[in-house]
C-alpha cells in the first residue's frame, strides 16, 4: 500500500508475556510492525491491548519475551527509556497538565536546561515548525484545560513529536472526538505516515481500522490471534476474530409501532453549579413502543438533561409528564419519586451513579429499591431472597462470573453494565432512560444490551437513549435528536446520513447551506 511500508520492521515483539497475579494479560505475543505504516491493534475491552502498549511504553515490564526497535534489542524499564528509543504515546486519558499552557506541556520532561527561559523560546520555535510540517496548529500560550478535547489530543501528539518520536502509539484516540475531529486526526495520521513515522493505533472501532490502517492485528483474551493486511480483510472477519464468533453489527429490529406518548419533557432549562446554562429550552416527547435517540458530542448538555429528567438534579424551569403524572422539575422531585411514577434510569456513569463498586453484586442489584417490602424481613434485609433474585438475574442476563457475592468493581465493564441494566429493566418500567449504554463495554455485551433495549421498545415501553456513539444512536433509534451546546438542534429519522448528523453535532443548523 505504501512504498515505505516494507523497509523492515520498526517494532518486533517476540514472546511477550505479562501476568498480574493469577490474571494473564498478555500471553506469548508476537508482533511485527512495519516502518512507515499505520498498524491497527483491535480487540475487545480486556483483550490485553493496553497492557501490551504499556509494556512497549515502559509503564509495565514484561515477564517474558523481548522487544526489538528497528532491529535492535531494547530494554524498556520506564517511560524515559521508551522516549529515548523514539516511542511516543498518546494515552486514552490525556497525560496533560490542565493548568499549564500548551508550550509548558510540550516541554515538560524535555526542558533543555535547568532554566526555563531559553527552553521556552526553543520549544515555541520547534512547535511552530512542527505545526507547519504536520498541519497541526495550536496556540502555544493557550491553557490546555480550556482547549476542546480535539486540540488537547493534538497537543499530546505534538508532545510526542517534540521528543523526536518515530513510533507513535495512539490508545483509543477517537473515543472523545466528533466525527469531524476524528477525520482530521486521520488526515494527520496520514501525513505522519507519509513522513515515515510508524503509527500504532489501538481501537475497538472496526470502521477506523478499515479506514486508516495498512495492517491490522487482532487480540483476544491476551493473545494475538491474527494479523491481516487491511486491504485483504473485512469488518465482519475482524469482528469474528475479536469475539471468536460471528456478531451482528447491524441491530435486527422490526419497524416501530409507536403508541400514546408516555414521556413528555417541556421547556427544560438547566444551569450548572457555576451558573452556566447547560440545557436550553429543551422539549421532547417519547411514545410507547419507540426509541428516541439523543446524539451529540459529550459535554453538550446531555448529562444535565438526563440528570434533570431522572430527578437527580433540579432544573431552572421545566416539567415532565410520565404517563398521566405531571412533575415539576424545579421543585420537590427526586430520583426515588421518578421511579415510583414508572421511570427507570440507567445512568451514563455506572461507576459514579449506577453502582457502588465496593458492594457485592447482590447488594448492587437492589440499589435504590432496597426499601421495598419484598427485600426486608422485619427490620433487616432478607438476604436469602435478595441473593436468590440476584442469581436469577445473573442467569437471565448471563452476567459473568456468576457470583452474587463478588464486589461490583471486580466485574468487567460489560458485566457491570448488565448488572445495572438487569436492575432497571426488571422493574418493568413504562419509561426507560438510558445514558451511554455501551461505554466501555465489549462487543459481545454491546450486542446483548442492544437486543434488550429493542425488546423493551417492542414490549411497548418508551425508551430515551442518550449516547455519544453515533453508530449506536443510528442503529437503535426510531427518531434522532441532536444536542449541541445545550440546545436540541433538530430531529431526524434513523435514515439520516452520518454527515448530516455530524453537522448538527457540530452546531451547524441549516444542513442545506453546508
Amino acid at each position: 500500500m505504501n512504498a515505505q511500508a516494507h523497509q523492515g520492521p520498526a517494532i518486533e515483539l517476540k514472546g511477550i508475556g505479562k501476568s498480574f497475579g493469577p490474571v494473564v494479560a498478555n500471553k506469548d505475543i508476537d508482533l511485527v510492525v512495519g516502518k512507515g505504516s499505520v498498524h491497527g491493534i483491535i480487540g475487545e475491552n480486556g483483550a490485553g491491548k493496553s497492557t501490551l502498549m504499556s509494556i512497549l511504553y515502559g509503564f509495565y515490564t514484561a515477564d517474558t519475551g523481548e522487544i526489538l526497535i528497528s532491529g535492535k534489542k531494547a530494554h524498556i524499564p520506564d517511560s524515559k527509556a521508551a522516549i529515548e528509543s523514539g516511542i511516543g504515546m498518546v494515552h486514552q486519558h490525556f497525560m496533560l497538565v490542565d493548568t499549564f499552557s500548551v508550550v509548558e506541556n510540550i516541554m515538560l520532561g524535555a526542558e533543555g536546561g535547568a532554566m526555563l527561559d531559553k527552553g521556552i523560546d526553543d520549544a515555541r520555535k520547534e512547535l511552530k515548525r512542527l505545526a507547519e510540517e504536520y498541519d497541526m496548529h495550536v496556540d502555544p500560550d493557550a491553557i490546555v484545560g480550556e482547549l476542546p478535547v480535539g486540540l488537547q489530543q493534538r497537543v499530546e501528539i505534538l508532545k510526542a513529536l517534540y521528543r523526536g518520536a518515530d513510533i507513535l502509539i495512539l490508545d483509543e484516540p477517537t473515543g472523545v472526538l466528533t466525527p469531524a475531529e476524528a477525520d482530521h486526526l486521520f488526515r494527520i495520521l496520514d501525513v505522519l505516515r507519509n513522513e515515515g513515522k510508524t503509527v500504532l493505533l489501538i481501537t475497538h472501532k472496526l470502521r477506523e481500522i478499515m479506514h486508516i490502517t495498512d495492517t491490522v492485528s487482532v487480540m483476544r483474551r491476551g493473545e494475538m490471534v491474527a494479523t491481516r493486511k487491511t486491504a485483504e480483510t473485512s469488518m465482519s472477519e475482524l469482528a469474528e476474530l475479536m469475539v471468536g464468533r460471528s456478531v451482528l453489527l447491524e441491530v435486527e429490529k422490526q419497524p416501530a409501532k409507536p403508541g400514546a406518548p408516555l414521556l413528555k419533557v417541556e421547556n427544560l432549562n438547566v444551569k450548572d453549579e457555576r451558573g452556566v446554562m447547560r440545557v436550553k429550552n429543551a422539549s421532547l416527547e417519547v411514545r410507547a413502543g419507540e426509541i428516541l435517540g439523543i446524539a451529540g458530542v459529550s459535554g453538550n448538555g446531555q448529562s444535565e438533561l438526563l440528570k434533570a429528567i431522572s430527578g437527580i438534579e433540579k432544573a431552572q424551569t421545566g416539567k415532565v409528564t410520565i404517563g398521566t403524572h405531571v412533575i415539576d422539575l424545579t421543585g420537590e422531585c427526586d430520583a426515588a419519586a421518578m421511579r415510583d411514577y414508572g421511570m427507570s434510569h440507567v445512568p451514563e456513569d455506572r461507576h459514579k451513579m449506577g453502582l457502588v463498586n465496593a458492594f457485592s453484586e447482590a447488594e448492587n442489584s437492589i440499589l435504590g429499591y432496597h426499601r421495598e417490602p419484598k427485600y426486608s424481613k422485619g427490620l433487616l434485609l432478607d438476604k436469602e431472597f435478595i441473593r436468590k433474585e440476584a442469581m436469577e438475574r445473573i442467569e437471565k442476563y448471563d452476567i459473568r462470573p456468576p457470583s452474587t457475592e463478588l464486589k461490583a468493581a471486580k466485574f468487567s465493564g460489560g458485566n457491570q453494565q448488565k448488572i445495572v441494566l438487569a436492575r432497571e429493566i426488571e422493574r418493568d418500567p413504562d419509561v426507560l432512560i438510558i445514558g451511554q449504554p455501551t461505554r466501555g463495554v465489549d462487543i459481545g455485551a454491546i450486542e446483548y444490551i442492544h437486543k434488550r433495549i429493542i425488546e423493551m421498545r417492542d414490549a411497548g415501553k418508551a425508551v430515551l437513549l442518550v449516547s455519544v456513539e453515533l453508530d449506536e444512536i443510528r442503529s437503535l433509534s426510531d427518531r434522532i435528536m441532536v444536542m449541541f451546546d445545550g440546545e436540541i438542534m433538530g430531529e431526524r429519522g434513523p435514515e439520516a446520513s452520518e454527515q448530516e448528523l455530524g453537522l448538527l453535532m457540530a452546531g451547524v443548523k441549516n444542513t442545506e447551506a453546508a
Partner: protein
Amino acid sequence: MYETLILVLDSTVRLSTPLLFACLAGLYSERSGVVDIGLEGKMLGGAFAAGAAAYVSGSPWIGLAAAILVSCLLALIHGYASITQRGNQVVAGVAINFLAAGLTILLGQAWFGQGGRTPQLDKASRFSEVTLPFADSIQDVPYIGLLYSELISGHNALVYISFLAVPLTWWIIFRTRFGLRLRAVGESPAAVDTAGISVGWLRYRAVLICGILCGFSGTYLAIGQSAGFIKDMSAGKGFIALAALIFAKWKPVNAMYACLLFGFLDAVAIRMQGQEIPGIGEVPVQIFQALPYILTVVLLAGFVGRAIPPKASGIPYVKERT
C-alpha cells in the same frame, strides 16, 4: 502615633517570619502534591534541636544546622509514609505533630531536666540583631530615620533570609525546570511519569525543601525570637501557616502578604493588651488573641474566593492505568 505604627509594623515583621518560613515550606510540599499538615511538628522538632544544639555548641549556626537536620528527618518520615508507602498524607502529618510534641518534651526533660525546656542561651549562642549600615546615623531624621532604623534595620539574620526566600521561591517555582516539574507533579503526576520523570524522587525533593524551611522556622522560634526552647512553643503557628498558604492560593508572593497579615493581627493583639479602647473600655486580651484564628475561619470560609489546590495534592500516586 507614627511611632506606634512603626513599632506595630516592626513586631509584625518579627511575628511573620516563622509563619513565612513554614508557609513557603508548605508551598513546596503541596505544589508537589503532598499535603503537609505536619508543618507544626517539623517547626517544633526544629526549634528543640536548635535550642539544644545552640546551648551545647554555643553557636546559633550549629543550632540552625541541627534544626534543619531534625526537621528533614521528620520530613523524610512523612515522605516515606506518603510517597513510598502511599499512605494517607494527613494522617502521616498528624502523626509527625504528635511525635514532635511528645519527643521534644521527653528528650528535653531527660537531657536538661528543666521541665521540657532547654537552658537559657546567652547572647552569643542566639541570632542577634543586625544593625544595617547608617541605621544609627540617620536615626534622628524625621520619619525616614525611624522607618529605617526600627522597621528595616535591627532584625536578626533569619528575618532577612525569610523575606529573601520569597523571590527565590517565586523564581524556582516559575522560572526553573525543577519548578515546572514540581508544579506539574502536583497537578498531574501521570503526565510527569509518562514524560519519563520520576514522580517519587521529585516529591521527595519537595518534601526535603519543606523540611529545610521548617528547620529555619523552628530555629527562629527558639534562638531568634526567644532564648531557648519552651515546650509547645510553635503554638499552632504551623496551622496558621497552612491557612495562610490556602489564603495565598499556593503562590509565593501572596504567601508573604498572607503571613504579614496574620503577623500584623498578632502584633495588634500584643499591643492592645491592657489598653483602653475609647468608648468600650478595656477589652479582654483573649479577644485579641483569638482574632487571628477568627480571621482564619472567616477568610477560609469564603472571603478569598475559591482556593483551588493543586489537583493531585493529597493523592498518593499509584502507577496504574484505568
